[in-house]
């Protein structure tokens, strides 16, 4: 009988203290509207939005190990849910988010069942196809406004603050949901699939069922962020709803923070958005170049994210020896 080592505490959610710091930072972000600056509200609302999308990606890409390049599809669907409801005369954030959750869950299951049978690059390409296909579909459906886009009625004067808190709540929900999912049987099943799908199957885990579950919960997270964004933005068109940035940034954020952890996406979103904001302020034309440089350096030196660095035993030497970049 071989003793199965119990997983180290925090191995599946990331370091506990980092998660607590993240919660503390979230509490701090409650006070952003007190600054009475629309710019701050908008900037931090975007950071929260990216964090929520990043959590959505993290479940399938980080925990389950299926790298998706199409999660922006869920964000876009969420945004269009707000547009459709507004057109029908319903201007209520709870209704927007509710509809986005339902539609995205159904859509993710319908799409996930066939494409989650694919692995590796094939899965990635299929997800990209889903996102591109939806962009074209939205451009050609007249009841969604076609390529001209659709307007969403704004609620009240204080809307900037309302939408900020709505996005904050969505992000907090994603963060806490990830924490509890990761520690549940569900989370262990996801990780088992990531580490070795065949072995997981032998242990009695149905890969398809769990993969679709991870994909659908992630879809709901991205969709909720999209619904709030759509309502907050007041206008949605295909290039905005399915923007390339919204596809790539959340992935980069999850990687920087730490894939498969409960605070990685949030920390990644804070740092990467913060860096982008500072670069944009100080380098009028070259900011995109520097930002790209940061991403390259990050992949080279922190391929497993900051959470890995925090949990590392063995210091600098261990870190360097782990890096592929030094293995020529």
């Amino acid at each position: 009988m071989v003793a199965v080592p119990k997983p180290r505490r925090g191995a599946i959610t990331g370091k506990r203290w980092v998660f607590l710091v993240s919660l503390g930072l979230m509490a701090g972000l409650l006070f952003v509207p007190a600054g009475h600056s629309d710019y701050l509200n908008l900037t931090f609302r975007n950071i929260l939005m990216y964090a929520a999308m990043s959590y959505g990606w993290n479940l399938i890409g980080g925990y389950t190990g299926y790298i998706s390049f199409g999660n922006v599809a869920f964000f876009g669907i969420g945004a269009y849910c707000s547009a459709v409801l507004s057109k029908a005369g319903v201007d209520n954030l709870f209704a927007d988010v509710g509809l986005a959750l339902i539609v995205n869950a159904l859509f993710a299951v319908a799409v996930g069942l066939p494409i989650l049978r694919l692995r590796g690059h094939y899965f990635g390409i299929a997800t990209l196809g889903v996102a591109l296909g939806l962009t074209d579909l939205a451009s050609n459906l007249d009841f969604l406004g076609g390529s001209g886009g659709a307007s969403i009625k704004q609620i009240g004067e204080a809307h900037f603050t309302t939408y900020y808190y709505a996005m904050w709540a969505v992000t907090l929900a994603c963060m806490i949901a990830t924490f509890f999912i990761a520690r549940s049987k569900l989370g262990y099943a996801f990780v088992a699939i990531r580490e070795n799908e065949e072995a997981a199957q032998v242990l009695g885990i149905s890969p398809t069922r769990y993969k679709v579950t991870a994909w659908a919960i992630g879809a709901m997270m991205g969709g909720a962020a999209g619904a709030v964004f759509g309502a907050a933005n007041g206008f949605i068109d295909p290039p905005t709803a399915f923007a390339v940035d919204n596809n790539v940034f959340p992935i980069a954020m999850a990687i920087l923070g730490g894939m498969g952890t409960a605070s990685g996406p949030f920390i990644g979103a804070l740092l990467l958005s913060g860096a982008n904001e500072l670069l944009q302020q100080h380098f009028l034309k070259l900011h995109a170049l520097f930002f790209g440089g940061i991403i390259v350096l990050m992949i080279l030196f922190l391929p497993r994210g900051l959470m890995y660095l925090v949990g590392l035993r063995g210091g600098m030497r261990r870190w360097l020896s782990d890096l592929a970049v030094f293995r020529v």
Partner: protein
Amino acid sequence: MIRTIRLFLAAALVFAAFGVPVTQARAAGDTIVFGSAVSLTGSLTKEGHLTQEGYDFWKDYTNAHGGLKVGAKTYKVDIKYYDDESKPNTAQTLAERLIDQDKVDFLLGPYGSGTAFTVAGVAERKKIPMVEGNGAAEKIFNQGYKYTFGVLSPAKKYLQRVLEMAVNQKPRPQTLAISASSDAFSLEVQDGAVTWAQQHGLKVVYANKYPDGATDVSSVISAIKAANPDIILNAGHLQDAILVNKGLKEQNVQAKIIGYSVGPDTPDFVGTLGKDSEDIVGGAQWSEAVGYRGIPGFYRTAKEYADAFDKQFHHRPDYHDAESTAACLAFQYAIQKAGSLDREKVRDALASLSITTFFGLIKFDNRGLNVYKPMVVNQIQNGKLVTVFPAEIANAKLRYPIPVWGKR
């Protein structure tokens, strides 16, 4: 080591969360600061740079001539720029930043209708006057906004002028094919042209759109070729014009007139396409040939403007340069008329402005759009941009029908 990393991480987080908003002091009391998010990267980079040139040219002129006199006081002018990456949402955030963090006095518009649309929403909410010279979609002006003013002619007019010219040629062209990128500006351009064509007995044999930012339009070109039109037009921006023109040559599609809404005017069009740009026509907001005589306070004719511009930037100004400078001029005369930097007073002065400049008449309808200035048609002849329509101001005769590909 681990402790150091932890400390670093904690510090970085605090920095990221609370260090981002670096409040910058408003410029000193004797400078008027304008703010503008322009496209310095992304798909509208070239046009964005032209916009910035147009703004800077006015700024340098004004400061070199002692500044702007408002009431009894004279102010220097400055423009704070950000790069909106050609993205409407980025432009929106940057407009908020210009107003909240940089505390600019007024807004100058971004390049393009998509970005101008989102920034106009911010200007309205913050009650800050914005004059823009590069967002022609009427969608921007149909929102009932009170703080956004556009010095340029509306999108619908861009290719109407080309058709107006075309139907007077002999032999008279009978059929039109027009493709459009799926952005607000281009769709309005297409709509305007199609409506005009139908009213004036031109048969529209192809009118379709392709995705905004497309990099392959070969299927569009094939469809146009199959329709065999006399006139081929494209509603889009510089990148679309280059893409479509290359496609037409590759598939050897012939027509009597080939024209674009944006492209032929920009210096990069001839530079990129070389001989294949020859004889192409384009709708233009302005050209060096226009004969307006402006009121004192700035270069008064198109020629004076163009020569001085050439000295500073080493290329002839195109209409993007001119309309951007014109946006600054609207502010200049409105601020002087208001005799104050008060935003409400300047807004009211803009609303009732009626001046002639080197760019033409600047006057706004009740939506804030300059519907009073006519457009012109330019053609590239021997690698140079010449004005061929309307006849009163034309400095060259339209080459029609244009030679086949390879014979230019």
